[in-house]
Structure formats: C-alpha cells, structure tokens
C-alpha cells in the first residue's frame, strides 16, 4: 500500500467509525435480535431461528400495515413531486413575489411534524375543530376526517404533503434556475410556448434532482410514523397503521414488549425499502441509458 493511500485511509477513519458504530453494528445487531425471542427487559432470550418471520406471515396486522404503508407512499410521493412541479412551473419567472411564496411554502418544512400534526388535528376535529364549525355555519356537514375509515388515510397524506412539498419545491427550483437560459431562448425561437419549454427544457434539465427527490421522499414515506402517531394513532380500526407504527406498538407500547418480533418487522421493512429503492434506481438508470 502506498504511503498516500495509508494517509487516505487515515482520513476516512472518523467517517468509517461513525458508519460502523451507528450503521453497521445496529444493522447486524437488528438482524440478530430478529432471530431471538428478546423482550424489552432482555432477560433470558435465546435464538429461535426464523420463528418471528414465520409469525409475521400469519400476522394480519403486518400485511395490513404493509398495505397502508404502500398506499401512503404510492399517493404521497407522486403528489408531493407533482405539486412541487406544478408550483415550479407557475413560479419559473422567479420574481420577488415568487421568492416570497417559496419561503412561505418552505416554512412548514422547518416546523416539527409533531407540532404540525397537533395543529391539524385541532383544526380538523369534527367536534371541536375550526373547519367543521365554520362549514357547519354555512350549512355544510363534514365527516369526522380523522376518525372515519374512508377519510383518515387521505387526511394524513394531505397533511404530510402540505408539510413536505416546500422542501421538494426548493430543491427543484434550485435545479431549474441552473438550467441554461440559452436552451430556453433556442426553444422559444423554435416556437415553443411556456408549457412546452417547461416540459422539454426544464424537466429534462432537472431530471437528476427529480430522481433524488423521488428516492429520498420514497424512503421517508416508507418510514412514516410521527404524523400518524399524533393524528390517528393508527386508527380507526388500524386503517392508518403503518409498518413503523406497528413496530413501535409491538416493541414499546403494548406488553409483552416483544422486541425480537418488532425487530423482525423492522428487518422486513428494511428489505422492502431497499427493494423499492433498487427497482426505482434501476428503472430510472435504464431510462437514462435509453435516452
């Protein structure tokens, strides 16, 4: 090994240590724990093979949580990206007013999800919330959005999109402003209108950023927890219970605090996220190669 190579390894040691201690060790420990019957007290646990995974297959709550997680992700992620693109299109002029709007849209993102969820739960509450009260004043009765099976998931998604789209919008705007002005001029000379220029100049120009947003929001969406815990606690009748919520429920909330089983669900979620991210990356990479 050359001397400068040794030095390079020396320089990456701190980062490597962080990765080992905070990523690899917990990752492999989690896989080990998922093969045990460990509870939260960690007394007298032993290896039970793949029993936890076998139990998962028979646990309807896991499949219900998987379905809810996928439904949430499949709606929230495209909606967030689409809304950001729509607003980007409307604010491509980058005037002072547009800058002000972008700041306003970004504000919810810097707030705590818990605080925002509490705020929305108060606003949307059927019996004591402002929205139901004001609409009732003009003769419109709304259902209990957070306590009715058909509406709860939609409401949670709407709150999540409202909070997060400012972040995506900011990233996409930064990328769009980097697209060369000469490309727009050329397109304009060729007779392209506003929408055509957005579709054929802006979108291809920010494709990598869109992909980045897609992957990061996908991973975040698959791990959704805070807003659901505050807004619905997984209800009504588990209709908004997601995988992370179920992991929390089994491991830390309801006796017998079955950490081994909860960890096996966490390992399953890990592979689910890895698989979906891998598929997305493969698909987009292939598209790029084809083009």
């Amino acid at each position, binding site marked *: 090994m050359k001397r400068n190579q040794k030095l390079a390894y020396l320089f990456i040691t701190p980062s490597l240590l962080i990765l080992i201690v905070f990523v690899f060790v917990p990752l492999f420990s989690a896989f080990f724990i998922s093969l045990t019957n460990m509870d939260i007290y960690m007394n007298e646990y032993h290896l039970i093979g793949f029993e936890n995974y076998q139990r998962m297959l028979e646990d309807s709550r896991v499949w219900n949580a998987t379905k809810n997680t996928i439904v949430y992700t499949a709606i929230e992620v495209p909606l967030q990206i689409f809304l950001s693109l729509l607003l980007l299109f409307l604010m491509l002029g980058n005037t002072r007013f547009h800058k002000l709007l972008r700041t306003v849209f970004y504000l919810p993102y810097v707030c705590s999800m818990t605080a925002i969820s509490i705020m929305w739960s108060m606003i949307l509450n059927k019996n004591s919330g402002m929205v139901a009260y004001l609409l009732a004043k003009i003769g419109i009765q709304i259902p209990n959005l957070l306590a009715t099976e058909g509406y709860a998931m939609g409401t949670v998604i709407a709150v999540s999109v409202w909070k997060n789209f400012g972040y995506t919008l900011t990233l996409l705007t930064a990328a769009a402003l980097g697209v060369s002005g000469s490309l727009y001029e050329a397109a304009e000379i060729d007779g392209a209108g506003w929408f055509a220029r957005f579709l054929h100049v802006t979108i291809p120009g920010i494709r990598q950023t869109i992909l980045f947003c897609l992957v990061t929001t996908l991973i975040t969406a698959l791990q959704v927890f805070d807003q659901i815990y505050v807004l619905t606690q997984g209800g009504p009748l588990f209709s908004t219970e997601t995988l992370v919520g179920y992991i929390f429920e089994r491991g830390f909330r309801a*006796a017998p605090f079955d950490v081994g089983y909860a960890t096996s669900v966490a390992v399953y979620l890990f592979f689910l996220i890895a698989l979906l991210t891998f598929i997305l990356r493969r698909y987009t990479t292939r598209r790029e190669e084809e083009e």
Partner: protein
Amino acid sequence: MKKRFAGGLLATLLTVCLLAGCGKAAEPAPAATGSDDTASAQTQTAADTKDEAADAGDTQTAEPITISFWCNFTGSDGDVLREIVANYNETNTDNVTVEIDIMDYATLQSKLPTAISTGTGPSFILAGVELIKQYKENDMILPIDDFWDVTGIDKSNFNANVLEKSYFDGTQYGVPMQYNLQYLYYNKDLFAAAGLDPEKAPKTMDELEAAAVACTDAANGIYGIGLPVNYGNYVEYLWANGGDVVSTDGTQNFLNSEENIKTLTWMQDLMKKGVSPEGLDAGEADTMFQAGRLAMYTSGPWNINGLNQLGINYGITAIPAGSAGAFAPEGGCSWMLAKGADDAVRSAAYKFMAYWLSDGVLKEWSNRNGFPVWADTVLADPEIQANKILADVSEASTIGRDYHLQLDCGSQIDADVMQPLMERVLRGDDVATCLQEASDKLDEILGLK
C-alpha cells in the same frame, strides 16, 4: 515528511474528537433544586411534613447523597410532583437530594431495562402498579419488605386495598404513591338546563341513559354523554351487568357472554340515539366536557385540577350500577427501588418515600390533583372533608376491582382486543359478531387457542 506528519496528526485529532463525543458526561454535582416561587408557595406544607420526614429511617446520615427517580408524569400532575420534590430537597435535614426525570411512557419502558442492567438507571422508579409483576420478574426492582419497620410509619393508617397493589407473591415491592379509579363526571349546568336535578347524579345505568337523552341537544352541539372510541375497555360497564373480560390470573376468557352482548348492545343503542358524538376521541371528550358541550363522561381523577381551574360547575360520582352492581377498574402508582441500590441509596429512598406518605404531602397531592385520599389521618383532615369534589371522589373510590393488573399482556388486551371491539360496536357493527372475533383474538393472546 512534514505534510504527512500534519496529515496524520489531523486525522488522529478528528478520530479523538469523534470518540470524545461518544464519552459519558461527568456526573453532575447535586443540583440546587426547586424554584423560589414554588418553594415559597409550599413552605407551609413542607414545614408540616418536615418533622415527620425527619423521623423516618433508623439512621441519620450526615453524608450528602443524591438519588434519582424516573417516571412518566408528563401532564400537569408532573408539575405538582416537581414542586413537592423541590420542597423535599430544600427542607429535608438528611442531606438527601432527589432528582426527577420525567419522560413519556414508551421512552420510560424502552430506556429503563437497559439503564438498570448497565448501572446507569435511576435509584428508584415511580410507575404504575400493573408493572410491578413485570419489573419483579425481570429482576429490575428490589423487595422492600422492611420499609414499614425501618421508617416506623403506621401501615394501618392506609387503605389495605391500596397497599396490596404494591405486593407480588406476598412480598412488598412498592410503596403506594396514588390510587385511582374511573369516575363519572357530569356538568351540573347542563343537567339544570335539561330540567334534571344538578345535585342528583345518575346512580344506575338506566338513570345514566335517561340523563344522557335529556341533556342531548345535538342541534346546538351539546351531547348527553361522551363515548370515545379509543377510551380503552369500558370494562366497568361490562362488570355492571355481570359480564367480564378475563380472569385476574389470565387463564379464562369471559368476553363472549350474553351479559356482554346485552351491555354492548345497550351502548350501541345509546350511540344510535345520538347522545354521543360519533368517532369521539378520548382527548376530544376531555376538551368537550371542559367546553360545556358534554353533559357526562367517564375519566380518571387527573382531570379535576383542570376543571377546577376552568371554573366548570361539575360533579363527580361513582360509575353507575347495573344489574350486578357498580364497579370500576383500579389503577395507581407506586415507588419502587431499582436493582443495584446499595444501603445508602435504599435508606435515602426510604426517607423520601416516607416523606411522600406524610399527611401534608398526601393532602397536597389530593387537593391539587383530585386523587382520592387513602390515608385515615388525611381523610379526617377538616380541609379534606370540606372539599366536596374530593369527598365525592373518595366516596366513589370504594368500588375498585382488579382488571388484568397481574397480567403481562394487559396492555395488549386493551390495544388489540378491547379498543377495536369498542370501535366496531360504537360504529354500529353486529355486536355478537364483534364479540366472537374479539374473543378469538383474546384466546390467541392468552394462549388458550
């Protein structure tokens, strides 16, 4: 050469910085405790209890000692608890400093076992009595059978049913801190507006139904009773008609019974009559009662303090009786000594627990938080006797019954069986089917299937 040396030094420095960040912080010096304003407000109480506390324990230690406890008193009662602890720290003559760490239930449950097993946990714990069995079986707490002898406190001064909750298999593992049941709250103004006698609370389920119907004025957003979907179990109403959920030892499932079908059908009919808002949440029920939009609802004593501060004209009474009588599930908290406590820590913790059992502290806790009184000498106190709400609460606290307190799977029964069952029943699903499915799930949890 110089460059390589500087590079190596820099990399080493970065690594050292990183590892330093992972190090354990130095033990804090015993903190000055309590705030001036709270201290002054409570000086009298502290003075009253100081002598009793000073007498506690068979040895007086001059060596300063700091002990700590963890609990999940995240509500307004946690503020009162902090004040009482601060008073103790300022007034005790034993050089004992008590530190308090309040966290939410899930955090407490996840941190405590690891902390105790690694010696970084608290000296003692304040937790629900239903956790004593789990903590004991997992070797997290120590027996404290010598507490009464060491402190010289008269055990007979306290209600036996409260004391027994701190025992497991005949051994004492806790010192009671508070005791509570569920109660029926009712709004006297709404009763009067509906033409009912505000001083006559419903005593039976039939009276409850009649009052709920009379008080409901849905057009104006006023409901007779709050039946939240996520309240937990409603076992008090099942018991009232002779039904039940599970035997106290967890070996029998009583859920699928004619008595329970009758009670749940009665509750479903109440919903159909429109006396309760649909899809009501337990937190929402608190808010609606505070806003004068619910005439009645069931809750623990922790709401009394807030209702008093809001000036609500309310009454509190025992859960109404059904055909089999009136019952309410018991609850409470105890002080427990964490594993690893040496003699000095044990002695200091006993002194603080003895302080808690002093008349002044128990009286302050009941007066300020509305928890029922469970000590004879405090019950005889004129100030306590003059407190109408507290007298009613104490009177309504004689119908306590054990609901899965000794079962490891207690919280799972509520979360996985009772709450989904009540959600389905209250939204109008077929009661018999719901009970059958809930019963099957309960069998699964109890290992009876």
